[in-house]
Structures are given as structure tokens and as C-alpha cells.
């Protein structure tokens, strides 16, 4: 059974009076434990596709199923448990909560899920990614690579079934970018987590088990390496 199934997704935006179709009848399925890269140029609609697949936004047309459950029309509050335990997110801009320390950022999803071992789990994860000394640092005190490692820990703490990663290396230099990517892949393999990664970088795409190419809001190729 597919962990994610998106059928005929369409998304439009209005810029002033002008209508722009960002996604045009896109269908995509992911298998459990699969590492898929959605690749495309800037403006191809790849980030929009990710937000729709992860329930952060709604399509104008089409349906999205997660483990067989239709999440397309779910209310924000009904999506919350999915975001908390089934999904993990890693963004290009990290999106760490500025008022929380690294440890608190990582703990947060686990605490929301009433996990009594949230603190220990978070500390262990941060230690695993080399941030044991930075647990009490606030996001503005961390480097880009550290922030992204912290964000990956946060995405993984509730052991989600799918990780959505939007250009996770986009804001990092190549050394840090490679390190972050290696970490993501290592954890993906280790936990058999489905990883959907959006990038425009061919090198990153080259590491995927499957690459979906997007152009002007349409899937032009799906499958195989880049």
C-alpha cells in the first residue's frame, strides 16, 4: 500500500487579477521507506506540491491520501496529529522557533504528543548530530548547518513515517549541505522513513532512489535517477 497518494492535484494563485496555475493535474504516489526527489527549476511548483502533499495547503482540485486516509479536506485541527506524528518537516529556511533553545525546539513535537521522555530523546538526537554542546543555544546563536541539523532532529523526534524536506541544503555551503544530506539519508535508511525531498540541485537528486521532474506545474518524468 502507498504511504502517500496524490491524484490530479491542481493549484492556482492569483497575483493581482492574474491567475497562475502552479500545479496542473499532478499525480504522485510514494511507497513506504522510499526516498523520492522532486526536482525542478525555480517556479516549477515543487515547493507548492510539497506543501499540498504534507497538508500545509489545500489544492483547488485533486485528492491527497496518506496511508489510505483522504486528508484533502481535513480541518487544521484534524491535520495536527498527522503533522505531529506521521510527518516530519525540514525546510530550506530551517524555521526553528526563535524563542526556544535548540533542545526545546527538538523536544517540542514530542512534548505536544505528551511524550514523557521528550527531553532525553531530544538530547540524544542532538548528541547524535554533533550538537550536544549547543542544546541551550538559541537559533540565532547557531550556524546554518547547526540550525538544519537541529531542524532534522526536530523532524525525527516523533519517528514520523514521512519526512518532507524542502531544499534542505539550499541555505548551506557545500560541506554543510553534504553533511546534512548524509545525515538525512542515514536516518532514512536506519528508520525506514519515507523521504520526499524537493530540490533544484541535480547532485542531490542523484542520490535519490526515484526522481520526479516537474516543469511548469506538470510532472514531465517520474522514476529512475536524474
Amino acid at each position, binding site marked *: 500500500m502507498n504511504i502517500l497518494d496524490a491524484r490530479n492535484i491542481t493549484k492556482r494563485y492569483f497575483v493581482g487579477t492574474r491567475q497562475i496555475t502552479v500545479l496542473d493535474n499532478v499525480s504522485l504516489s510514494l511507497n513506504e521507506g522510499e526516498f523520492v526527489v522532486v526536482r525542478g527549476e525555480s517556479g516549477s511548483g515543487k*515547493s507548492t506540491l510539497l506543501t499540498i502533499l504534507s497538508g*500545509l*495547503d489545500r489544492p483547488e482540485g485533486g485528492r491527497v491520501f496518506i496511508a489510505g486516509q483522504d486528508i484533502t479536506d481535513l480541518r*487544521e*485541527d484534524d491535520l495536527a496529529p498527522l503533522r505531529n506524528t506521521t510527518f516530519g518537516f525540514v525546510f530550506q529556511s530551517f524555521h526553528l522557533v526563535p524563542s526556544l533553545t535548540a533542545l526545546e525546539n527538538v523536544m517540542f513535537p514530542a512534548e505536544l504528543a505528551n511524550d514523557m521522555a521528550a527531553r532525553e530523546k531530544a538530547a540524544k538526537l542532538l548528541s547524535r548530530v554533533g550538537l550536544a554542546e549547543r542544546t541551550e543555544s538559541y537559533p540565532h546563536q547557531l550556524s546554518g548547518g547547526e540550525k538544519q541539523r537541529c531542524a532534522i532532529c526536530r523532524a525525527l523526534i516523533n519517528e514520523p513515517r514521512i519526512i518532507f524536506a524542502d531544499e534542505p541544503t539550499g541555505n548551506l555551503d557545500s560541506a554543510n549541505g553534504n553533511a546534512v544530506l548524509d545525515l538525512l539519508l542515514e536516518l532514512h535508511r536506519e528508520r525506514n522513513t519515507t523521504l520526499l525531498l524537493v530540490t533544484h540541485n541535480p547532485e542531490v537528486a542523484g542520490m535519490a532512489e526515484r526522481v520526479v521532474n516537474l516543469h511548469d506545474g506538470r510532472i514531465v518524468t517520474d522514476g529512475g535517477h536524474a
Partner: protein
Amino acid sequence: MAVMPDFRYIRRQISRSRHQSLVFILCVALSMVTLVSLGSFSRSVHSSLLRDARTLHAADIIIRSRAPFPADFEAAVTALEKENAVESARVYEFYSVVRKVAEDDSLLAQLKVVEQGYPFYGQVKLASGRPFHEVLTSGSIIVEQVLLDRLHLQVGDRLKVGEAILTIADVVVSEPDRPVNFFALGPRLFVAAADLEALDLVGKGSRVSYYILAKVHDQRRLANIAKELRGFPSEERIRVETYRTANSRVKRFFDNLLFFLNLIGIFTLLLAGIGIQSTLAALLKEKEKTIAIMKTLGARSFYIISHYFGVALLLGLIGTLVGLVVSLALQNFLPSLFRGFLPADIGLGVSPVAVGEGLFIGFMVVVLFTALPLFGLRDVKPKAIFGKEEQRASRHGSTWLVGGACAMFFLIMVLLRIRELKTGLYFVLGTGILILAAFFCTTWILRQLQKRDEDPLIFRQAMKGLFRARNSTRAIIVTLAAALTVVFSITLVEKNLDASFIQSFPADAPNLFFIDIQSQQKDDFLKTLGIPATTYAVVRAPLVAINGERIDPEKERGKRGDNLGRTFNLTYRKFLLDDERIVAGKGLFRPDWKEPQVSVLERVLEMRDMKIGDLLTFRVQGIEVSARISSIRARTEKGLKPFFYFVFSKGVLEDAPQTFFTAVRLDKERIAPLQNHIVARFPNVSVIDLTEAVTVFSRIMAKLSTIIRFFTLFSIVAGFLIIISSVFATRHARIQETVYFKILGAKKRFVLAVFSIESLLLGLISALLALIFSQVGSWIICWQAFDLTYRPFIGTSLLLVMATALLVLSVGVGASLPILTHKPAAFLREQSDE
């Protein structure tokens, strides 16, 4: 680069920060609204009172005394009458118990015995519409409707007043020289002077106010005649004033009340000033990236500051105009707020001075309170374009300069409004201490909160919110705590007064006072009274010198509070009362001193410093009596038992004209029969039911509290405006938090709970601080000013705290609600666009 301000730029900056601009405008308006409305209203009242001054005094010259006018003074007035310079009328005012002729029913009334001619100006309006002088003839009286209602009488019935039986001829509707009767302990009763002797109520030492009202035929001579009478050598304290210089009781009361309200107005100005500063700082923070870009492109700090000063000035001008409109509108509401305290027909007008004053205050407030955030723009670095971290403002010399200028402005406002250096400095000091205490306590509490990390997730997030960048947490708490302290204090003091006097009149305190018992009546009176009672001799006399240095009564009377310019009740005895103790001296009197001695109550020392051995000189019925201070006494209990400021040793006052009084405790149902019984036998003795007097006092207190609370509300609004401004200033951070929380799986309920608890914490901290400060303040007020044993009213205090917390919660959550609906995807898109 051009330095000329670009008005399109200024307009755009305002329109893009509409919410903050609106809060800024409201803060400016708020800063002036109380002072300008009060100033304008005060001018209207004063000009009304001045315009109708003759009517309000019913004469051109008003001469008053607490004792009968000396014969030579009377002769001087008569001489003026004979040369046709003046026309005069004697007026006597005092309280006395009047009773029904046929039944035992009596009532304390405020008697006004007047000669023909009164009033020279204005009219005593009667219910029948007939002229006053035609109705008030010998044998008849005119009374207030309340008296008829309470004694179940009607016009035409007879009433026993003192020893005379007089017929009620009419009902008085209004009298010119008493436009307000809010403070009276009993209804008005007019008696013709021809019946004064028949009343037999004015004995030696009786509490009577003696007046001579004079109409001057040639107004050009007014000042000279007054001067001539004022310079008349008299041993009695006779006050001679013209209608221009005399302060009516209404004006005196109004001035005192206004004095206090002006303090609140200045307090509001200060808090609104904090609001202005914090709102502009938030607005400028929103513009930080724009400013950084301008600097990157080569704009100098002066160019940027001048443009944002333009923004502040334009908003300030709008705020000032809004404030003026609201102030003038408010002025129309004030007469109903002050109803009962002021004449009903006060003419209201918009005075150009008030408008000018409003514009000046508005301008100064904007310039001074925006200076710091504007100077702070120098610290914005071009690297702020990247918006990676919050830039911290540094302190320059200008910070202290602006701070000093703000403090000076505050002080000048206080001195201009209060016109009394000592009180002004006390007020500034008090306000300063309050705000500093609030500041330091808030800082300490916030530090403690910041250390906590063991609380449940929601509480932790809420506390984190308090330390969010741009969150004006400290400014909000300081402002609210300071404003609430005033409101809470008023409530607590009012409650204490209410509890001490009204709800539970002290069980052991006397509730019935019998005054003006003549010496020859004393034994008979005590027998008639039928219950054990102590009588106290009372000799009324002013203090005229201390150690030979003469007291200037005019100067003394100018002081706020009790003063040495009044006539005191002196007594004599050999022993200390049960509720007295000696605080200085070796006993009440010194056996080794042969000269006359006097023991002084500690409270007198608050009026003038005195010490043992000082020689006090009183004028008793024209004779100067000196006595040396042998001891200083203090009262051990605070309550309503009789006490005397000056107690003489035996052998000094015994032969002076004196009356006696006594005070007893009686069950409420026994008061009326005893009053009727005593009055029937001793018509000249006044019976004062203290529980009745306390009801009048309570009514006045309740009304005053309402007025004060109304004006204090404005300072609380300043606190709320800062909360709203703070929510706007942190809008982006709050949306960011909301979105991140949602992405990580939080429900809307969680986010709402976080924001709610954050607001609740703000409200609770502010209210609890205010409660502590107000408990201390109210305790001092009750102890120092009212001599009461203080009760903290824990239940009411907790209710006040809860009500405040709920109010702050509503304002905070209300302002945050639109943020909760923000969709994660939209925010993420905006972020990636930047």
C-alpha cells in the same frame, strides 16, 4: 542628499503601519485628554463662579467670624451704613435640633437666621414663587422639603425651634449663597433675625458662624471699604472679603478636588507617554529593514530621523486634534459626573486657552516621548537588511538628556497644575517611587520566570512569549501596575472607610454627641440623660502665638489640610484619657512648674513643630492666655472617641466662657426618643447622630470615588493601548510561532492557550504588583490620613486581581485572534519570497 522631507514617504510609512499609527494617535490623545478637559471645565466653572460671584455670596462684602462681632467693629459697620456707603444684613448659621410641637419627633436642621436685606444679590427661590422677604417675617420660618417629609409636616404647621414656636410659611427651593447642599448634615431652615432672641440658641461659646453681608452702593469704593474693615483692630479672627476675593465653599471644594484630579491627569500623561514611546519604538522596529536599506544606499541618520520625526509629528498632530475634540466633548459630560458638587447651571464654553494648552501639551508630549526611539534609529545598521538578529539599542548621552528633559517636563507640568511646590515634589517623588518600584519588581519577576523550565509545555511557551523580541512586556506591566495601584487604592480606602464607619460602626465608639450644653445646664442635663456619661468642657479659642511669634491666620489657612489658622476647642482636666499616652514629657503636667501648662496632641506637631517648654498663646474671648507645653500626647486607639488637641492644666480656663459636650453609645432605636426628650428639655443643645453624619460622609466618598475612578480609567487605557501596540509589534513573531506550532502538530486550541496564558500572566503580574503597592499605600492613607485600623480586604483584593487579569486576557487575546487564523502555507510562501 536632499534634506527636505518627502511627504509622500511620510504618508506611505503611516499608511503601511496603520495599526501602530492608530495606537500612537490614541496614546497622544489620551495623554492630554484628562488635563485639557479638566482645565477647560475648571475654567468654565471658575468663570461661571466669578461671573456669578456676587450672587454666590449674596453680597459685595462678606465678613465672617466664629464669635460675635466686637462692639467697636459693629460700630464701624454701622458708621458706614450711616454715611450711606453700605447696606448690611446679619446672618447666623448653626445646627440645632428642631421638633414637632404636638409629638415627640425631632430632627437636626441647619439654621440660617437672616436680617431683612438678605440676599443683596440673587434670589432665595420658594416653592410658592412668592418673594422671600415677604414670606420670612417674624414668627414664620421657611424650610427645605426634606424637613417636611421627615417630620411629616406641611406648610402652615408649627415647629419648635429652640425656645420659640414658629409657623412654616414656605418651602425653600434654592438659595444663592448655597448652590450645592451636598455636605449638609440636616435640612435648611430659614428664621427671621427678629426671632433670634426668642430661639435662645445662641449662648456663649455656641458653635455659630456669624456673618455680616454688605452691599456697597458705590462699587468704586468696594476695595477701600473692605481694606478699611480688614485693617480694623480686632481681637477676634474676623475675615473680611469681597465677592471677588472670597472663595465660596463650592469653589474651595472644587479647587481641592481639581487639585487631586490634576494629579491623576498628570499621572495619565506620564503613562500615555510611556505608551507613545513604546508604540513608536514598535512602529520603527517594523521599519528596521527599510531604514537599513536606506542606510545601505547612503542615507544619513539625520535624514532618516527627520523623516520619522515627520511621521511622529503628523501622527502627533492628529492625536492632539483627536484629544482636543474628545476633551471638549468630555467637558459636556463632566457636569453630570460632578453633579451635586457644583451649581447646576454652570455655563460651559470652549476656551482658547484650553485649546492652546492642549496643542502645547500634545506637541511637547510627542517631541519628548518620541525622542528616544527616534535617536535609536542611529543604531540601526545596514546589516539589518539580512534580519538575522535583533539589534540592541545602545545608550548614548542623548538617552540621559532626553530622560532628563522628560523628567523636567513632568515636573513643570506638576508645578504648573498644582502650584504648590511641596505637594508637587511629594507627588513627583511618589510617582517616581511607584514607577521605579514597579520597574524593579517587574524586572525581578521576569528574571525569575525566565529561569523556570520545569513547567508544562503550554506554560513554558506562554512564558517564552513574554520574552519575545519587541514584546513590551516590562512597559506593559509597569504601566498597568502603576495605573491599577491608584484604582485599587481608591477601592481599598473606600472599603476601609465604609467598613469602619458605615457597616460596622465601632462597637465601643459613641454614636450620639450632645454639644453646646451650657455650664448651668450640665448637672440637670446629665440627670435627664439618665446614662453615665463624661462631659468635656469646651472653650473655643484661636492660637495666636508660639513663643511670642505671632501666627498669621491667612497664611495658615492657605495650607492644605489642618492648620493653626482656625479656632480650636480647648479643654482642661488633670488626667489622661483611657485611649491616650504620653510620648514626650514626664506626665500630663509638670508638678514643679508654677505657670499655666498645656498638653498638646501629637497631631498638632504635623501643623507646626513644637516641643516641651514652648509657650503657646491663645486668645480666649479677647483675653490672651499663655501656657507652656508640658507634654505631648498620642492616641492609642484610632476611632471616634472624643479627643482634644490642647488640654490645659487646672486653674487656667475654668472661668472662661465655655460649653460642654458629651458623647454616648446608644442602640439605634433608642436614639430618636432620647433626642426628642433632650431637645424638649434643653432646646439649645444640639444632638448629632453620628451614624447619620457618617451616611452623608459615605455618600460624598462614594461620589468622589466614582469621579476619581473615572479619571483613573484613562491611565488604565494607556496600559491597554501598550498591550495592543505590543501585539501589533510582535505580529510577525506571533504569526511565525503560530505557523511553526501548527506545522509541528499543534492544534489551534494549543496556540490560543499559549497566547491566553501569556496575556493572563501579564494581567496577573500587573494586578498582583498593583495589589501589593495599593495595600501598602492604602494602609498608609488609612493610618495617616483617616486614623483607621487598616483591613486588607483579601476577598475584594482577589476579585480586583481576577477582574484585571480577565480584562487584560480579553484585550490580549482579542488583539491576537486574527493571528490564529493564519495559514502555514501562506506564511511559508511569504518567507521564501523575502
